[in-house]
């Protein structure tokens, strides 16, 4: 079976103005390769500014990478002009973080869901109504008629996010990139949205890229987890393997930092990595994690480690292995 989506050595550099004449380069994504199978869920975990959102947007060709290739369904779409991407736009969809800004406040739920159908010239008016109704049922916004006429400001955060999911699914895509879909939803409802996405993803066999900073939800809702640090993937494995046996010092620290509800927590200090992630404008040479790494070696300061398979299905980029 061929992969649904393959990213090959993707680099995304942004130019940013620094004063009148000087521009600096921000290396948001700095050489990432990964592949996603049909119906598979890959979680991309990292802290803010690590480039995970940029990578997701690049996978949707919302950004053209500086270099590297995006291969979707066997076709190279890296440099296709927008006019030749229409088929891809139908097969690949996005779900965004902020349910308050990801839908146009001036459109009704019906208009929001109808827009993709109109743009892709799908169905007659009646057929479209039927598809919208089905999509709303899928995301459990019932009674359907009542929700169709509502404006976003009349919906709760969770309901909006369901509208967003319905919009992403209405074209029956093969690939969805979901960028922090639940981070702005209350803890008690978060799982509900994630279950809904999981259910629909399995029902329609969608390949899912799940972007999150929350490694705990990634564990429960994905087939594989990739950890990103400063524009690079530093480790990739199946969830249980990654969490029980993290290899990269950064992954270890990240897992260590996540609290669990345990009354003994207060009696022990967490092992933390010092400092904050450096700016992607001036990333350190060698391994990008070396200034904060407890196991730093001379080699780490000069030579960048490559992502390699240490055991089956477990990849890590670290000189320790």
């Amino acid at each position: 079976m061929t992969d649904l989506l393959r990213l090959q050595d993707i680099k995304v550099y942004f130019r940013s103005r620094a004063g009148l004449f000087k521009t600096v380069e921000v290396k948001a994504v700095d050489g990432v390769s990964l592949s996603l199978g049909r119906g598979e869920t890959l979680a991309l975990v990292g802290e803010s500014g690590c480039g995970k959102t940029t990578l997701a947007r690049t996978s949707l060709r919302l950004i053209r990478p500086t270099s590297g290739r995006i291969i979707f369904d066997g076709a190279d779409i890296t440099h296709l002009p927008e006019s030749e991407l229409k088929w891809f736009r139908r097969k690949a969809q996005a779900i965004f973080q902020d349910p308050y800004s990801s839908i146009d406040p001036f459109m009704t739920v019906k208009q929001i869901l109808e827009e993709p159908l109109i743009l892709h010239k799908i169905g007659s008016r009646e057929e479209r109504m039927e598809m919208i109704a089905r999509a709303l049922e899928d995301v459990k916004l019932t009674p359907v008629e009542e929700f169709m006429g509502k404006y976003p400001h009349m919906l709760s955060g969770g309901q909006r996010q369901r509208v967003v999911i319905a919009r992403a699914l209405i074209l029956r895509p093969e690939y969805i990139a979901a960028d922090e879909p639940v981070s702005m939803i209350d803890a008690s409802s978060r799982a509900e949205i994630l279950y809904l996405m999981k259910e629909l993803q399995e029902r329609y066999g969608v390949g899912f890229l799940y972007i999150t900073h929350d490694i705990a939800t990634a564990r429960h809702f994905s087939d594989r987890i990739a950890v990103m640090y400063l524009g690079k993937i530093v480790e990739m494995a199946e969830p249980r393997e990654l969490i029980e046996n993290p290899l990269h010092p950064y992954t270890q620290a990240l897992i260590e930092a996540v609290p669990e509800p345990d009354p003994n927590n207060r009696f022990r200090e967490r092992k933390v990595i010092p400092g904050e992630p450096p700016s992607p404008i001036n990333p350190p040479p060698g391994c990008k994690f070396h200034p904060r790494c407890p196991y730093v070696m001379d080699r780490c300061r000069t030579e960048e480690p490559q992502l390699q398979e240490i055991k089956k299905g477990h990849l890590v980029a670290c000189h320790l292995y």
Partner: protein
Amino acid sequence: MSVGRDALREFWASKVSKMGVALLVLLVVVSVYVVLTYPLDFGLRYWNNPAYWADNPKAVPPEWWNLFTDKKLPPHVIKDFHEPSDVRDQRGRRILEYVYSFDFQYDEFPSFLSISLNNVTFSSRRPPRVEIFLDRPDNISVRLLRFTVTGPRPGEEAPYFRYVEAPNRVRITGDKNVFSALSAMLKKYYGLSIRPSEVGEIGAEKVAFGEPSGDGFKVLRGRYVLRAVVTGYDEDVDVGMLRMVVGGRVYGFSGTDTLGRDLAVGLLFGFPIALLIGFLTSTVTTIIGAITGVISGYMGGKVDTGIQRLSDIILNIPLLPILIFFTFVLGTEIPRLWVIIAILIAFSWPSLTIVVRPMVLQIRESQFVEAAVAIGAPRLWIMFRHIFPQVAPFVFAQLIFFTPSAILAEAALSFLGLGDPSMPTWGQILETGFRSGGVYIGYWWWVLPPGLLIVFAAITFVLIALGLEPVVNPRLRRMK
């Protein structure tokens, strides 16, 4: 659309908005009335044509001023006769008599007396003779004036037509013969010897409508009869129209200026002009500003940089001096009103561009726009369907907000003497009032109303803009 209805309800909820809308309705109604009833070339043909206003008193306050003063001032009376009051045939002559009888009960003399003849026809070689009599309440009757209509020219065939193109206007109170007649009257009835030239100095209207009292004259109240007798020497003699004017010391609703122009007429004409300047300028300005703002914000890159630089430069130029310069230099070739509007637009649009641009930048970054791109929406679709609706309420508010600035800018230029002479505006009326020294003499009816109207027009839009503010400003809205 419910968002729109909510916004409308919110707008309508405030007292300020209601007041603004009421004023706007008034403005529009008056303007429509003027547009429907005034000729297009009003400015040149009537307003700036002194002959048209010749029968009016000069620089007098409005009639209602009498309500506020103890001294009752005579109103202006124009009496038009299309038919004579009486026609007699006497020894081969035809006598047309025009009689105007009126009760004069005021504390001040009329400002002048005049008579005009229009379309006089006759066929005898001897031209008709005109005599003007004044019968006073004290039973004195004076023949003020006698003159003949211009006789036939050699070779001219009967019937003879006279005063067809323009009326023959005789200002009675300014005529030397009248002075003599009045001087004779004073001698005969009061035993005063006052030379005709002195009558002229005192003022013929004072002598005619007054009686000597102490050093001067006081108003003689009572019934006066003003008679014009036209004696023709044939049966065809005819006067198309005869007009008698007893010049008042108050006039109409707004008084007159030093040329006798009825200020109410001019001020009314200012309504549609103010609206035209305000709406045209602000509409075009906001359209250009909104489009450049959306393009600059959404397209980015070189286009964006170019628009930004241009805006930055234009915004750093002080507007009024530039307006003066351009209107002065170009105003001789192009109608000044259009120059003013064009320059206002050319130098104002960036102020909208620079506020719309960051809004668009923010909207462009918002996830629903990104979602639309991901769905496969083309650029134009996104700009029109998603971005423009977001900025539209704000742009509309700016349109309203900018309207008074345009009106005020035109008024300022007019006040500096750069108004469009073919289009009398409030600013121009004020300027003539100011330049004629109206402020120093106290012609309040001349300088206050145009200013008040400008304020009225401007405040209409300011009020509406204030009412719109909570609707378009999300920060204020959220506080509720």
